């Protein structure tokens, strides 16, 4: 189990989002998600866990690449070639997931029972199936049904999977906006649609931005799952390298360090973003 430290905004959202169905009824503070460790705002020690991990990982990688060039420098140079693909896939997929999530989230707070049901079923389906199984299934389905293959299929698969989680985040974000906001808007004569567009959603986005950042990090890691079939990303580059050189442990060590460093940097950025948003009220 991984421990999560979220700031206040994300907390608000996380409290309402409960990923595994089992935890829905039990109100517990322990959140089991595949999220990342966000550094605590109140922890100003020079050696907090984030800094230490970052220093160890960056130091280790730098040391290996500079002082143990065989095999590590060549491993690093090969593996890092996968990074642009990893980022490209993650960025496009997160946009897809946000768009799907917006519809799913709005669907789950809509007044129509049928619309609620449809988005509910979508979320339950996605939550109940292991991510790797879904990704491979959607990947093949894309190929068979739409003749979409390669990176595009991977992006579709990631978007569809993460769209469900994003939907839950959007729903929780909408529900975190005080009821009085909607009431004030419709009391002024706005339609519910206008109220959503001009009053609720702009505030929701601000509230869920850190949570979206966390999803981005999760997705960046989970995109490695798709690489087993479709992508020439960091992990695939590493596996190809292993196939050529048989340096399995060394290569995977570098792969792990590269992912870890990227994730650490991103989580720090999300933390900063969250602090900024918090300060601006």
């Amino acid at each position, binding site marked *: 189990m991984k421990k999560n430290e979220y700031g206040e905004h994300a907390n608000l959202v996380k409290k309402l989002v409960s990923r595994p169905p089992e935890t829905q009824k039990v109100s517990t503070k322990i959140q089991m998600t595949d999220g990342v460790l966000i550094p605590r705002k109140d922890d100003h020690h020079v050696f907090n866990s984030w800094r230490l991990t970052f220093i160890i990982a960056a130091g280790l990688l730098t040391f290996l690449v500079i002082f143990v060039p065989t095999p590590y420098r060549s491993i690093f140079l090969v593996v890092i070639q996968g990074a642009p693909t990893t980022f490209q896939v993650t960025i496009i997929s997160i946009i897809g997931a946000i768009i799907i999530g917006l519809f799913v989230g709005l669907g789950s707070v809509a007044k129509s029972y049928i619309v609620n049901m449809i988005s509910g079923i979508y979320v339950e389906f996605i939550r109940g199936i292991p991510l790797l199984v879904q990704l491979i299934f959607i990947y093949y389905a894309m190929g068979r049904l739409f003749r979409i293959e390669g990176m595009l299929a991977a992006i579709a698969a990631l978007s569809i999977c993460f769209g469900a989680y994003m939907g839950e985040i959007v729903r929780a974000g909408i529900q975190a906006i005080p009821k009085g906001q909607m009431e004030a808007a419709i009391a002024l004569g706005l339609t519910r649609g206008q109220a959503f567009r*001009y009053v609720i959603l702009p505030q929701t986005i601000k509230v869920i931005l850190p949570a979206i950042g966390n999803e981005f990090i999760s997705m960046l890691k989970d995109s490695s799952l798709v690489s087993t079939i479709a992508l020439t990303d960091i992990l695939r580059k590493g596996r190809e390298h292993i196939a050529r050189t048989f340096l399995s442990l060394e290569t995977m060590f570098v792969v792990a360090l590269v992912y870890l460093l990227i994730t650490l940097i991103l989580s720090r950025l999300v933390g900063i973003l969250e602090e900024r948003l918090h300060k601006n009220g």
Partner: protein
Amino acid sequence: MARIRVENLCKDFVTDASKSIHAVKNASLSVEEGEVVVIIGPSGSGKSTLLRTINRLEIPTSGKIFFDEVEVSSNSDIRHIREEVGMVFQSFNLFPHLTVLENITLAPMRVKKMAKAEAHALAYTLLERVGLSEKANSHPNQLSGGQQQRVAIARALAMNPKVMLFDEPTSALDPEMIKEVLDVMLSLAKSGMTMLIVSHEMGFATAAADRIVFMDEGEIIEVAKPEVLFNNPQSKRTEKFLKHIL
């Protein structure tokens, strides 16, 4: 002519399958054009609920509501009624992501399709009226509670409503800010606005109200002119409540 007329209004809240709360029981009331009516009563007596049924933030369980003698029902144009009825909430409910100016111009521009320049001019006129011209570009969280509530009044007035509803507009405010809000409301009352106000500010009620309504346990117990109701209440329940709060 009665601006608002409520006839035998009931509102039940169903909390769970078996229980339902009768928040408003058989209430009848009319507010004439230009009249200021203040509703008082203990907590949970249904004051807010009665107010909220008038612009249909709550759908009445039974009974009739007339606006300018036209019955408001589920198939009437609710949005049109909401345009004509301004509402001010206890917790202000300003839109925190918008500036004061944008808070005021949102509804005129989106609902009435007013041009931006016109909406801005209107907003500045209203801000002057509530004494906050220099705050146009501030965000709500940069304002004090009293200032926020005055902006909320300006925001409601921007739709040029025929009736203003106030639900305990000063009870979330620090004592030193209550007066600035009441002053705005008083000048609004003097300008001839029809107002229905839930408030326990007795000084204000005496000065501004044409009639006071006392509610208890969902029922309208007594309606009278302020001097009559405060000095010579007809009902024991009114008397008891007044003793309690004065």
